[in-house]
């Protein structure tokens, strides 16, 4: 009896003593993590050693470069709405994450990145693969923290997840020294975090501002809604739809907000910004009340600020107080989570239609179709265009696919023309404009939304920046459709050189490898199409193919994306050619 009594607690104690590495993996499982994108290395080996014991409970995707890993994490988060998790080792492993962190911060993508770090006693000694990751990553993370003792791991991890996904989401980095990963300690139950005293994820909704906003909207003759990714991040798609449908207000989107309501919704008047649609840009400077929801008036959206919507009263709904008045002064600021504020506003706005005002958008749209879109999407002669590739794809997927675009002309074409029936279907590097984003992000998106068709839409420049991730596809067996629209140029830079630098094509002529052979080397099926008559069947073959497929489409070399608001011009000075 006595010995039993003595032994029992000891045994229990023994069971509870685990390594920091194991505590981390257990914590991740408790947070509901099912997929990790990572790359092992010296300083993160104890975590990987623990991961080995849990390899049946969590899927680790071995990437080919840490940048690929973090973009995959972003794609996963954007497609699934969950937090993306990324592992990297110390030093170069961690510094390779920086581009992705900056991208995730500016695009408000929830990520938890775990980096290994040298032993705590070696910090600051220029140890092998030591980099000051906390300092380097500070400006590009929402929060970061260095763990030097295993006992900190459970709380730090819970806090990391809470901060990453709450309020305006963003990337969080935990830098864990090797000794902390190895250290045995008594680990309690994982407790999720719900409160950090210095952190206010959501401002309190102030009813009087909802009231004022509703009054402005109800008096408005020409109200206009701009929406951004905030709708998607706040899972407020239904609330948003209810709001626009009751108020009858035409609504346009930033590329980060694309797909929050379907492309063919009658009140969806199109894309904002530099390469956005004609009507939304011109009419920004004609509306009387501008209602911005979950968007931040990026310079690519506003063009010249001192000539931006000066005639309009501005209502700005945002969860992040630092966005209010940052670029455009708000007449009425509605701080808060749009999932809470939109229903309050919907209740107070009068049910209306604005047929004449909406008609203006439709008139501009018709002009844009005649002057730009028809030739881009349905050319009958000449070389192929990027637009017709997207158009054919739309017809074949019926708008149900997730489109992951890269950066440049391909991105603008994808965002302008992709038919999106569902939210979380347009994944692109909006704020940072990271070339090489599409391929790894598409891989992540497929893991995040395994039941959906995921298409990476990239140019011949961007694809070469992260092409090594074909190896990730090969090893993981993930099913991603890759379209390379090849114009044999760094097309967007070339377009600017043509328009603004007297066609001085400075280093934009880029040579591609034989992509089909490269794909073949990775065991990925592929095809190259140069003739229009083969495009549709090739796309059909790609979509029908079981597993990943790479389709290279040769498109016209010197095509420009229009309309365009030239830099330094007002949105109403948008050019159709």
């Amino acid at each position, binding site marked *: 009896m006595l010995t039993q009594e003595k032994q029992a607690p000891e045994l229990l104690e023994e069971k509870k003593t685990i390594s920091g590495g194991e505590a981390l993996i257990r914590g991740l499982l408790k947070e509901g993590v099912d997929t990790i994108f990572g790359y092992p290395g010296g300083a993160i080996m104890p975590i990987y050693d623990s991961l080995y014991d849990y390899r049946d409970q969590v899927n680790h995707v071995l990437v080919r470069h840490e940048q690929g890993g973090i973009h995959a994490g972003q794609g996963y988060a954007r497609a699934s709405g969950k937090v993306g998790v990324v592992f990297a080792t110390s030093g170069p492993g961690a510094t390779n994450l920086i581009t992705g962190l900056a991208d995730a911060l500016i695009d408000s993508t929830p990520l938890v990145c775990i980096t290994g770090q040298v032993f705590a006693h070696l910090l600051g000694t220029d140890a092998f693969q030591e980099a000051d990751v*906390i*300092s380097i990553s*500070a*400006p590009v993370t*929402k*929060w*970061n923290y*260095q763990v030097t003792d295993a006992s900190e791991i459970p709380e730090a991890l819970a806090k990391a997840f809470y*901060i990453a996904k709450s309020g305006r989401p963003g990337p969080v980095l935990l830098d864990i020294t090797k000794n902390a990963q190895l250290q045995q300690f008594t680990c309690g139950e994982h407790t999720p975090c*719900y*409160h*950090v*005293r*210095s*952190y*206010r994820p959501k*401002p*309190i909704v*102030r009813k009087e*501002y909802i009231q*004022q906003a509703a009054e*402005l909207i109800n008096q408005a003759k020409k109200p206009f809604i701009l929406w951004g990714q905030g709708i998607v991040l706040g899972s407020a798609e239904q609330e948003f739809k209810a709001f626009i449908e009751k108020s009858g207000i035409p609504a346009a989107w930033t590329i980060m907000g694309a797909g929050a309501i379907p492309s063919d919704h009658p009140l969806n008047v199109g894309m904002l910004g530099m390469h956005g649609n004609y009507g939304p840009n011109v009419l920004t400077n004609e509306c009387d009340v501008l209602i911005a929801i979950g968007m931040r008036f990026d310079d690519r959206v506003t063009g010249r600020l001192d000539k931006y919507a000066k005639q309009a*009263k501005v209502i700005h709904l945002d969860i*992040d*107080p*630092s966005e209010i*008045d*940052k670029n455009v*002064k708000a*007449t*009425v*600021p509605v*701080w808060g989570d749009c999932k809470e504020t939109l229903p309050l506003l919907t209740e107070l706005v009068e049910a209306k239609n604005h047929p004449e005002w909406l008609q203006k958008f439709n008139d501009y749209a018709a002009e844009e179709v005649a002057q730009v879109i028809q030739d881009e999407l349905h050319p009958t002669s000449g070389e192929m265009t990027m637009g017709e590739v997207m158009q054919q794809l739309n017809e074949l997927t019926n708008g149900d696919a997730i489109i992951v675009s890269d950066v440049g002309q391909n991105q603008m074409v994808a965002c302008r023309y992709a038919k999106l029936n569902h939210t979380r279907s347009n994944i692109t590097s909006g704020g940072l404009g990271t070339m090489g984003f599409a391929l790894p992000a598409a891989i992540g998106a497929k893991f995040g939304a395994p039941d959906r068709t995921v298409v990476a839409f990239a140019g011949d420049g961007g694809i070469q920046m992260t092409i090594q991730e074909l190896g990730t596809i090969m090893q993981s067996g993930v099913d991603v459709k890759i379209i390379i629209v090849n114009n044999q140029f760094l097309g967007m830079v070339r377009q600017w050189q043509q328009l603004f630098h007297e066609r001085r094509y400075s280093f934009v002529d880029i040579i591609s490898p034989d992509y089909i052979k490269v794909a073949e080397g990775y065991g990925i099926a592929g095809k190259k199409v140069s003739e229009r008559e083969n495009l549709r069947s090739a796309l059909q073959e790609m979509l029908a193919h079981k597993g990943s497929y790479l389709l290279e489409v040769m498109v016209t070399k010197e095509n420009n994306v229009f309309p365009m608001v030239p830099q330094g011009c007002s949105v109403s000075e948008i050019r159709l050619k």
Partner: protein
Amino acid sequence: MNQNHIDRQEFNITVYTEHHVGLLNRIATIFSRRKMNIESLNTSPSEIEGIHRFNIVINETEDVIRKLTRQIEKQVEVLKVYYHTNEDVIWQEMALYKVPTDVIAEKALVERLLRENGARAVVIRKDYTVFETTGHREETDNLIKVLQPYGLIEFVRSARIAIIKGSEGFNRKLREFERAEPGSETLENEYLNSREKIFSM
């Protein structure tokens, strides 16, 4: 640009933070990313245990300062940020002056010098004497001029510290922060309240 320059003035930014590694860096980069210089920076424990207080002096326009303070407040470990003009705060800087004792004792009317400059002697040794004074920049500058002829050996000035004239302290606000569900008194509303006076519809 010119107009911008004219509108610039000194602002005293007060930041209440958790005492965490790396936070100084995070706050500093908010200025450095805009290529802005910090005129003066003081960080020290506040009256509340575990909470630090930064006093930052920046020469800028109010519009920029407002954006900066919100970006500072957005940092996870920052509790609250205020900004004030010089008129809204009582501020002081402290200065220490080291002079050779023999010269100062022989040549200067030490007593008058100290009284006129509100200074006091902190250390008097055979070889040197250290005076201390507090005040605004001009006052501490002035004593440098006075002591220079007597062979000023070393001089150091602290960062500015400032007390906010209209403040009711931070204790009550902190209790509010510690509640998981904040009440209507929480701080973000302060801006909205004063905003009504600035913007009318």
